[in-house]
């Protein structure tokens, strides 16, 4: 009832009086909860450590600079391993994600009742577990090393790629598919001519986007022993070799910047 009758004619308001009051109380309640939470967190914080933090940070920074540049010779292989883990993991994930996506998309699934829920389960299950946890599990199963890292990245990425891809499949223009069907094309030909060209840009975008994310994820996999530059990072942290840590962080930053640049270029070229 946003229109009120008054002596000067009808007046329009966005909300009625009751709605406005309810919103006001909602805001009041929200602010009260926020302040209460602030109080609780504050009580449980050891403020001594927090006040101390800038000094400690400055101390670590002074120990970490300048980076130990000659250590770079021992980082080339680990960073190469890291990039390989990300790249091979992404490729493996895409190979597995494509069929899952076609089974999960409403317009291409063979059975919406039996097969689609299974595909969705695969997507949710692989997506919801972090790659570090996958790596921990896989190291227990197939032993430490680069291979465990690749498999961890691959499994973790299936759900992500399949979800974005099946959403792209569901958004395709159905009349193009209809037109190819009407020529007497077989089911696979309809897929190759009617569906694949429509999702190709999305596929390429997803692939480089996920590769970019995986470069970042694979840098930490070494922390749990799954190969790559994270192994060196962990070793340096454990021995308090701060100049090495700072160099490793710089190398990781450089790798991430380059991967971002590559993926932005590739996406720009496709779209």
């Amino acid at each position, binding site marked *: 009832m946003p229109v009120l009758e008054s002596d000067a004619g009808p007046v329009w308001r966005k909300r009625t009086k009751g709605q406005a009051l309810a919103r006001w109380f909602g805001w009041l309640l929200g602010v009260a909860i926020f302040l209460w939470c602030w109080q609780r967190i504050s009580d449980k914080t050891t403020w001594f450590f927090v006040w101390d933090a800038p000094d400690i940070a400055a101390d670590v920074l002074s120990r970490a600079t300048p980076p130990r540049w000659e250590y770079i010779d021992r980082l080339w292989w680990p960073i190469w391993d890291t990039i390989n883990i990300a790249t091979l993991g992404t490729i493996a994930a895409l190979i597995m994600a494509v069929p899952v996506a076609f089974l999960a998309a409403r317009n291409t699934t063979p059975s919406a009742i039996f097969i689609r829920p299974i595909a969705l389960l695969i997507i949710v299950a692989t997506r919801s577990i972090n790659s570090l946890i996958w790596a921990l599990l896989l190291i227990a199963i197939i032993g430490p090393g680069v291979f465990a890292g690749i498999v961890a990245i691959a499994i973790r990425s299936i759900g992500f790629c399949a979800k974005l891809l099946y959403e792209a499949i569901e958004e395709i*223009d159905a*009349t*193009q598919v*209809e*037109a*190819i*069907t*009407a*020529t*007497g*094309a*077989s089911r*696979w*030909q309809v897929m*190759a*001519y*009617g569906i694949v*060209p*429509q999702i*190709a*840009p999305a596929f390429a975008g997803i692939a480089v986007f996920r590769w970019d994310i995986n470069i970042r994820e694979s840098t930490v996999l070494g922390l749990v022993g799954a190969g790559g530059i994270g192994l060196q990072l962990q070793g340096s942290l454990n021995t308090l070799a701060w100049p090495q840590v700072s160099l490793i962080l710089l190398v990781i930053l450089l790798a991430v910047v380059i991967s971002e640049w590559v993926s932005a270029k590739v996406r720009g070229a496709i779209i």
Partner: protein
Amino acid sequence: MLRLDALTKTYKTGDQALKAVTLAVPSGQVLALIGPSGAGKSTLIRCINRLVEPSSGAVMLGDVDLTKLGAGALRRERRRMGMIFQEYALVERLTVMENVLSGRLGYVGFWRSLTRRFPQSDVDEAFRLLDRVGLLHMADKRADELSGGQRQRVGICRALIQNPALLLVDEPTASLDPKTSRQIMRLICELCAERGLAAIINIHDVALAQMFVARVIGLRLGEVVFDGPPDGLTPDRLTEIYGEEDWEATIDALDEEDEIEAAE
């Protein structure tokens, strides 16, 4: 050549889109299907090539009842029915040539079509058709670079390269300007005459239909309420198809257009 026998389509929602439509189209006849939105025009032509499954009735193409066919046999029969769409329905990211050749998919195996190795005779025919519609120089362009009229010409080529006996045409001019609409309608009718094709053309522009076809079918709420020559569409008849409206203006406009065309 094409015979619909008590063709009925009831959607899951309970809407009856077609109510026992019975219709015969002899070889080489071009007919226009007119009627208000929701009359079942699109459903009717999609029930013929079973993009929409009819609920009951028969669709006889020659001696074959299309409604009884399994998947493989249906695909073979679909090759004999070319379809042209309202929004062109070209695969936007493929080239003009690939779009035209996709009309041959029913004749070519999967791997050959995937690697785009179509038989040379198909490629020759594609070039001939593109030349016929005046788009030979566009063969290597991507479909989304073309204008509406050009896209519809590619759509026509894709339907014709199937070597069909029948064209199913769904609102071919609805997205085009008046001049391009006429050119496209004229092209479709000329090509049908050249090749002796029968065609069913869904169209909501009554004047345009009257200009080009020999027979008009009026559809209203899924039933055939008019079947006759275009001159038979009197204001009374149009009222029966579309509902109450002043039809004199439409008919006058048509007469004027004829005079202008004659003067040109």
